[in-house]
C-alpha cells in the first residue's frame, strides 16, 4: 500500500516540479499519437465514407475486414511495420525505424481501421433517404459527402476518441518500431513499461497518471464539443 501511496506522491511531485524528462516524454506521446490520430482521421473518414456510400462486389468482406482491423493487436502491427521499415525491408531506404515517424506510422495503422469502422457505422446509421434529400436540395456529390459527414459528426467524434485512446495507450507497436530510445522515441507507455521493470514505481505511476490525464482531457474536450454541437 505504501508503495502505491509513495508512487502517487512522487508522481505529483514530478508533475508539479515540471520534471524535464517526464514532460519531454509526455509531449512526445501527445505529438506522436495526435499526429497518428489526425492521419487516421483523414484516411479513416475518407475511406469509410467511400465504403459506406458505394456498393461494389466484395463490400461485405471489406467491411468485415475493417471491423476485424478495429481490434488489430498492436504487436502484430509493430511486427509488420518493423519488417517494412527494416534496413533490408521494402521501405528500409527511408531509414525510419526507431524514429518517432515509425511510431506515427504504426499508430496510424492501428487507429485507421477504428476510425474507418466507426465512420462506416455512423454513415449507415443516417436515415436511408437523407442522401436523396440532400441531392434533391441541389447538392453536388462533394457537397453531399461533406453534408453527410457533418450529419454524422457526433458518432465520428466517438471515432476520434476511440482512435486517440487506442494509440496513446498502446505499447507493443511503439516499443517495437520506436525502440524506446531515451529523449527520442520514449513515449509514456514504453517508459512506463521500462520503469516498472526497473522497479521505479514512482516514475511509472507518474507517467501513468499523465497518460490517464491525457485520455480524460481529450475525451472531456470532445464530450464538451458534442454537447455544444446539439443546440437546445
Amino acid at each position, binding site marked *: 500500500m505504501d508503495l502505491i501511496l509513495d508512487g502517487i506522491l512522487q508522481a505529483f511531485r514530478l508533475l508539479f516540479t515540471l520534471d524535464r524528462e517526464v514532460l519531454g516524454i509526455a509531449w512526445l506521446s501527445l505529438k506522436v499519437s495526435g499526429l497518428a490520430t489526425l492521419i487516421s482521421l483523414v484516411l479513416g473518414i475518407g475511406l469509410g465514407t467511400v465504403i459506406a456510400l458505394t456498393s461494389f462486389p466484395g463490400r461485405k468482406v471489406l467491411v468485415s475486414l475493417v471491423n476485424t482491423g478495429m481490434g488489430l493487436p498492436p504487436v502484430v502491427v509493430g511486427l509488420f511495420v518493423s519488417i517494412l521499415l527494416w534496413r533490408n525491408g521494402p521501405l528500409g531506404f527511408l531509414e525510419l525505424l526507431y524514429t518517432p515517424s515509425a511510431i506515427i506510422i504504426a499508430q496510424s495503422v492501428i487507429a485507421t481501421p477504428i476510425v474507418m469502422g466507426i465512420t462506416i457505422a455512423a454513415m449507415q446509421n443516417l436515415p436511408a433517404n437523407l442522401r436523396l434529400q440532400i441531392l434533391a436540395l441541389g447538392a453536388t456529390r462533394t457537397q453531399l459527402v461533406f453534408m453527410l459527414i*457533418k450529419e454524422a459528426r457526433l458518432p465520428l467524434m466517438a471515432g476520434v476518441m476511440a482512435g486517440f485512446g487506442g494509440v496513446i495507450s498502446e505499447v507493443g507497436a511503439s516499443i517495437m518500431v520506436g525502440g524506446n530510445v531515451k529523449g527520442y522515441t520514449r513515449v509514456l507507455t514504453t517508459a512506463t513499461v521500462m520503469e516498472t521493470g526497473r522497479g521505479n514505481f514512482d516514475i511509472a505511476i507518474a507517467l501513468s497518471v499523465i497518460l490517464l490525464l491525457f485520455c480524460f482531457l481529450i475525451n472531456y474536450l470532445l464530450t464538451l464539443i458534442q454537447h455544444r454541437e446539439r443546440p437546445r
Partner: protein
Amino acid sequence: MTTPAKVLELSGLTVQRGGAAILEIPAFSLNEHDFVSLIGPNGAGKTTLLLAIMGLIQAGGGFSLSYRGSAVDSAAAQLAFRRRIAMVLQEPLLFDTTVYENVASGLKIRGVGGRELKERVYAYLERFKLVEMAKRSARKLSGGEARRVSLARAFAVEPELIFFDEPFANLDPPTRQALTEDMDRVIRERGIAAILVTHDQSEALRLSNRVVVLHAGSIVQDGTPAAVMNAPVNEFVANFVGMETILEAVVLANHEQQMTLKVGDHELDAIGEQQPGEEAYCCIRPENVTVSIDPPYSTSARNVFKARIVETAPFGPLLRLRLDCGFPLTSYVTRESFAKLGLIQGGTVFASFKASSVHPITKR
C-alpha cells in the same frame, strides 16, 4: 384560350429493379401552373417517378427529359435542373442543427450567403410561422413542426416546380389540414407547378387540377379530378377511387347515349356510349345512392330498387350500408338519417340513383 406552356416533358421512362420493370411511362408532361395529384396503390411507382424525374435513380436507356424546352441530358444539366426544383419527401429528414440552418440549407448549397441568405430564410420562416423556433434544434420538434420546417426548406429555394411525396403522412387530421393549406397557399401565391403524391383522394380532389393514376408502374388514367373520380377508365381505377359498386352488365339498348343495361335480372338506366350487346362494368359511387323507407315517387332518379340492408359499418362520420337489390349496392347515410329513418340491419329500404350516376366502362 391559349394552351398552357409545357414546363416538363419526358418520354421513354423505364426503371428496372431486379431485372423487372417497375416503371414504364412512354410520355408524361407537366404544364405551367399544373397541380397534379399522383395517386395509386403502394408500389405503383409514384415515388420512383418523382425520383427518376429528379435524376436520383437510374432510368433505362431511351429516357429523355426536357425542362422548359431544354434537354436535361448531362450531369451538369441535371444539377442545374435540380437547383430549379424542390422535393419534399415523406419523412421530414431535417439536418441535425437549428431550424434556421435547416431552412437555409438549400440556399447555402446554391451559394447564397450574407444578408440575402438571412432575408430569404426569415421570409420563409415567417411564411411558415417558424420565426419563434428559428434557434431551436430541429431534432426537438414535433412531427407537425418538423414537416413545417421541411416545407419551409423546400420553398426557401424558390423553386419553379415542386414535388411532394406524401409529405404529411402519419399526421393528425388538424395538423395535416393546416400544413396542406399552407402548402397550397404558397404554391398558388408563387404560381408554380407541383406534383403531389397522395393517398388521400379528397386532398387530390380539393387541391389539384389534374389527377394521374399509376398502377403497376404505368399511368392508367390522367385527367381532371372529376373525370378520374366519376369516369374511371377501368375497373382498377374505379375500385381505387372509391367506386364501391362495380357491376358486370350487358348493354340492352342505347338511344342517344341513354342506355339500358342488364345487371343480373335487373335493368339499369345509364348515360354512356357503349352499344347494345357490349359487356360493361357499371360503376356507382356510394354518395350518389339515396336510401328511403318508401318508394321515392317525386325523385328524378331513374333507377329505383327495393333493397335489403345486409351490413352497416361506420365510415368516418357516416355509415356505410351494404345493400342487396338482387345485385350488391353500397350507400352512405349520416348517423342522424339512419336513426331518423329507423333503419336496421336486415330491414327493407328503397335505393335510388340517377342514370348519370352510373358510369359504364367497356369490359376488355
